[in-house]
């Protein structure tokens, strides 16, 4: 768990981060969104003390970060940035081993951990361990960057625009992979982005920042239905609202009994995906199946529309 308390950063007369407080529960993903210059990155970099706060404090699992030596604190917190900053003169394996090596892990333990992480990120150790970063694709570099950040099993992972350098197709796959891995490892994540879709896709909670201030910190649904300020509403995008809402609900949560004709939809798909499919196929309803392919019921356009309304 991480608690941010009245965190403030001033550079001379300008306040970059202004009295921000929020808390991220154990194993949750908090996404910080805002326009550029909103103070998101500065906020993130104050958590691992790359930037020294002017006021306020950060507690990681109840412990004040100021009480922990700077380097030791960073060994405990994973850090992923846009462009990843992989060491170009070191192999993939050496890159991933960075923090375990700094912590003085035994060689065999490091090797085992590197292999485990490469497997986890679907990079064949035999093929990738000895490669250099410049020999990897953008998506592979991104995975190595996250693997390196997770190497010493940090309780907290900080990510600053981690998907910013990827093209849209690879980006959405990388987001899904991150979600899957995060669900598995239960690592607490604070992620900074300016991409609202990414925020809604990944965030358990979303913190909206503008000009250094935290405007609202709430779940995605709450952000849509009860925006605290006009700016939040604007940032969320009024035209996008119903679709964002639909994308927060899984088909399984809106399932209707009965049958329908046509290509089945998975229980785990979002209502947005289902709607898109229904519109495309020109159907009123489609059958729903579970992951094994067994019929579970049906989903209709009318049912979906009910979930896309601001007021039930």
């Amino acid at each position: 768990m991480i608690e941010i308390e009245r965190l403030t950063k001033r550079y001379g007369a300008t306040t970059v981060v202004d009295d921000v407080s929020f808390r991220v529960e154990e194993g949750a993903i908090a996404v910080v969104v805002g326009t550029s210059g909103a103070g998101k990155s500065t906020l993130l970099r104050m958590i691992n003390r790359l930037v020294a706060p002017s006021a306020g404090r950060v507690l990681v699992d109840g412990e004040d970060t100021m009480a922990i030596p700077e380097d030791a604190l960073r060994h405990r917190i994973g850090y992923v940035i846009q462009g990843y900053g992989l060491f170009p003169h070191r192999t993939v394996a050496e890159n991933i081993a960075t923090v375990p090596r700094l912590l003085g892990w035994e060689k065999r333990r490091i090797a085992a951990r590197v292999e485990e992480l490469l497997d986890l990120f679907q990079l064949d150790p035999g093929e990738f361990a000895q490669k250099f970063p410049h020999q990897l694709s953008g998506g592979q570099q991104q995975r190595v960057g996250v693997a390196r950040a997770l190497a010493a099993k940090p309780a907290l992972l900080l990510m600053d625009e981690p998907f910013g350098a990827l093209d849209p197709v690879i980006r959405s796959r990388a987001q899904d992979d991150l979600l899957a891995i995060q669900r598995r490892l239960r690592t607490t994540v604070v992620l900074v982005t300016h991409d609202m879709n990414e925020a809604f896709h990944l965030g358990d909670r979303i913190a909206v920042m503008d000009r250094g201030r935290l405007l609202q910190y709430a779940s995605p649904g709450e952000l849509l239905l009860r925006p605290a300020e006009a700016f939040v509403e604007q940032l969320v995008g009024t035209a996008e609202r119903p679709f964002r809402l639909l994308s927060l609900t899984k088909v399984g949560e809106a399932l209707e009994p009965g049958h329908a004709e046509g290509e089945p939809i998975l229980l785990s798909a979002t209502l947005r995906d289902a709607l898109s499919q229904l519109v495309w196929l020109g159907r009123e309803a489609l059958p729903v199946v579970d992951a094994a392919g067994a019929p579970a019921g049906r989903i209709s356009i009318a049912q979906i529309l009910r979930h896309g309304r601001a007021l039930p």
Partner: protein
Amino acid sequence: MASLRASLSLDRVGAVIAVLIGVALTAAPFVTYRANRIVAGEGRMLADALPPAGVAAVVLAAIAAAACAALIRRPAIRLAAAALGLCAVFPAVGVSAGFVAPAGNGFARVSPALGFWLLALAFALLAADALMRLRLGPWVRLAALAAAGAAIALLLLSGAWADLSLMKEYAGRAESFWREARQHLWLALGSTGVACLVGLPLGMLGHRIRRLRTALLQVLNIVQTIPSIALFGILIAPLGYLAAHVPLAAALGIRGIGAAPAFVALFLYSLLPVVANTITGLGQVPAAVTDAARGMGMSARQRLVEVELPLALPVILAGIRIALVQNLGMATIAALIGGGGFGTFVFQGIGQTAIDLVLLGAIPTVALSFAAAILLDALIDLTQRGAHDRD
């Protein structure tokens, strides 16, 4: 059709080399003959400079090399042609010395003349061009340097050049030649070494502290613009004072003139490339890389040693290369203020209008700079390979 045209078309560099060879064979004397060491010489054309078989060998090798240079594009063949030319012309000039000088005349001097130098230049150009096109790896280049060094050593030790004026100048001063060689190397390598010891930390500090960086580079740039002889003059006063008032300095051989001011001047000149390249190299390390290193909890020292210096190394080595090559050449000037080195022969030779004595100082200087450049270029490549394709 296109391929036919391509295969017949003239190679531009090669055409120039072929013209050089043509001029050297037909219009320039191959050697100069002088009745004694300092009288004006008379040129001997190739046909009069060698026995007929020797003339034929040199002409054939030169024509073959010219044809390859102009018409054949495969670098390996061009390199072989250049090697053939060099192997013909270098021993030939030694043979010529024995052939042209009257037997038993100890005063007569034979030196290579314009024709020889043009041929040597043309073959060397051809070889350099071919080597560049071959894009050899660093190890092969080092091996090629060693082979060239061995070939030259063999030529000199075999006595094939013993009758040449250059070697007669050497024979008279073998002892002082090697003494000045040691002095030259000590001046050039020592001053570069000290420049590294001082310049690397200065560069690292300059990288961290912006104000220091600007001041440092400005001062070093000004030093670089002072002519060497003026810098020697400037150093005479403080070093002379030091020698007069600090017994230890005097005991170490520091005086207002001699090796000390030369050493200090060379050191000051080489400081700029070392410091500037250290600052540039460290500045080129991507911001994301240093940010990630900090974010993972690497200390300032760990970042410098494990990340920044390895990534800056090729640029830093390029600076050391500039410093070393520059100092190997500039150490010649040290002789002007009694600092020794190969310059001793150059300035003695100029004083006596004995051009071969000048060459005795100049040729080793050029060869040393050349070898140092190749050596450090290979080293730079090796460090860069580590960063790119060590797989």
